[in-house]
């Protein structure tokens, strides 16, 4: 069983297997399940992600509060004009990440990756790479196991909960997971995956969790957008051979310690940050009335 990114890399080097394979084998061993069972369950999760992405970019999704919905579709339509600044692949990831998180806010069906609030980043990046890298279904399932391997290390050594560690623990972790998996899918080495994860998470450090009216909507949907774009840029940095000066495990540890030193007002309590702005407060009142929350 691996406990750190360092141990994960040691296994891949010793046995000359990809990160996804290490995760699959560990799952088989710990839960005494067959490879087919585990692949089938991940295949099901992939289908759920695919359906949420499709729904979000095609339908006018609206949340119950009315705060979010429709922006993923708006961006997706804008990309089709071929007149974007960032380029189609990057924005495709962003549109699909937002679309998924809008479906989440509207109480639609999603797959948490690693949480519901950060559910857009991993599928957003994955489905944006589909046209470029033309992966088989198995490669897409492997993408999720590689993402899971890095999320597994973060969850067990730091935190993936916004209430415990701020949004850096949710969208930050999700972005690191997606970047590492993107590197593997693009043919990079396990070490490059770890570099991409470290670079991504470094750039998300300090991200507070300050949901307006306590809802998983504002700023969550657009933070999923930021996470997805950060992941793709960092994956390219790593594929170009750029290394993180601070190793992934130490970045994860830094993230944890930053989370612990954040005041509780900035950890999913809706008492600080954007939630405490005049507009944030007004929206809270409009949605929930004057009832104290």
């Amino acid at each position, binding site marked *: *069983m691996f*406990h750190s990114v360092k141990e994960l890399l040691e296994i891949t080097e010793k046995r000359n297997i990809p990160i996804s394979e290490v*995760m699959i084998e*560990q*799952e088989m061993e*710990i*839960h*005494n*399940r067959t490879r087919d069972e585990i692949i089938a*369950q*991940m295949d*099901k*999760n992939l289908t*759920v992600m695919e359906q949420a992405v499709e729904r979000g970019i095609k339908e006018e999704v609206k*949340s*119950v*509060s009315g705060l979010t919905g429709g922006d993923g579709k708006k961006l997706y339509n804008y990309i089709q004009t071929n007149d974007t600044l960032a380029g189609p692949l990057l924005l495709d990831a962003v549109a699909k990440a937002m679309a998924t998180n809008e*479906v*989440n*806010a*509207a*109480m*639609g*069906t*999603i*797959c*948490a*990756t*690693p*949480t*519901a*609030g950060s*559910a857009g980043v*991993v599928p957003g990046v994955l489905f944006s790479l589909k046209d470029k890298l033309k992966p088989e279904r198995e490669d897409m399932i492997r993408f*999720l*196991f590689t*993402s*899971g*391997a890095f*999320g*597994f290390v973060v*969850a*067990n050594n730091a935190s*993936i*909960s916004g*209430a*415990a560690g701020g949004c850096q623990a949710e969208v930050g972790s999700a972005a690191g*997971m997606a970047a590492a998996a993107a590197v593997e899918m693009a043919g990079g080495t396990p070490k490059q995956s770890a570099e991409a994860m470290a670079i991504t998470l470094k750039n998300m450090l300090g991200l507070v969790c300050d949901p307006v*009216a*306590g*809802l*998983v*909507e504002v700023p969550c949907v657009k933070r999923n957008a930021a996470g997805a774009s950060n992941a793709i840029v960092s994956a390219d940095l790593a594929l170009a051979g750029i290394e993180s000066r601070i190793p992934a495990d130490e970045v994860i540890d830094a993230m944890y310690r930053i989370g612990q030193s954040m005041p509780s007002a900035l950890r999913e*309590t*809706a008492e600080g940050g954007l939630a405490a702005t005049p507009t944030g407060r007004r929206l809270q009142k409009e*949605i*929930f009335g004057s009832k104290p*929350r």
Partner: protein
Amino acid sequence: MKFRSVFDIIGPVMVGPSSSHTAGAARIGLVARHLFQTQPEWADIHLYGSFAKTYQGHGTDVALVGGILGFDTDDPRIPDALKMAEEKGMKVTFIEEKDDHDHPNTVRIRLGKGDDRMELVGISIGGGKVEVKELDGFKLRLSGNHPAILVVHNDRYGAIASVAAALAEEEINIGHMEVSRKDKGKEALMVIEVDQNVSTELLKKIGSLSAIEKVTKIHD
């Protein structure tokens, strides 16, 4: 290790918007429903901490009621659960508690039908994982790290051995176990943490053993 499975990270499949406040709540409701075994006529739901403060925005209310109606975390009917409860004649009351509980996401569910009553305290510990802290006055200590089953039984000799034998037959290893009873010869409870997932078929088999009244599992 708090998280043992990759599906704790890539998953669960669920109805949004929050794994702790929606998926976790649905799972607690579903555990209560499995233990009560039948559609209750009424449900009193006491909410504590963050659950009390944010339950409407996170759909914690519909998720809890959806679970009590028998819906899993990914059931698309969850958003309509309150309306469906009304149609099924289940009276639901939410009570926002001012006092904090030990855990920020705590709920006390009381269910009733005719003379039957059941009370359960559950907490949602993040990522859709839940723990049951109390059942009908029995205090439970579960790590939440392993799949667990709850067995309500009569305090009779052989009851515990028969459950352990049924698990052994399927090569399922018991990692941790607690037994407690209200009084000698009265209602008793077994909490069994196991290493692997327990199938629905095996749960049914345990439920049909003599002296066993109710059985349910907490995690997948």
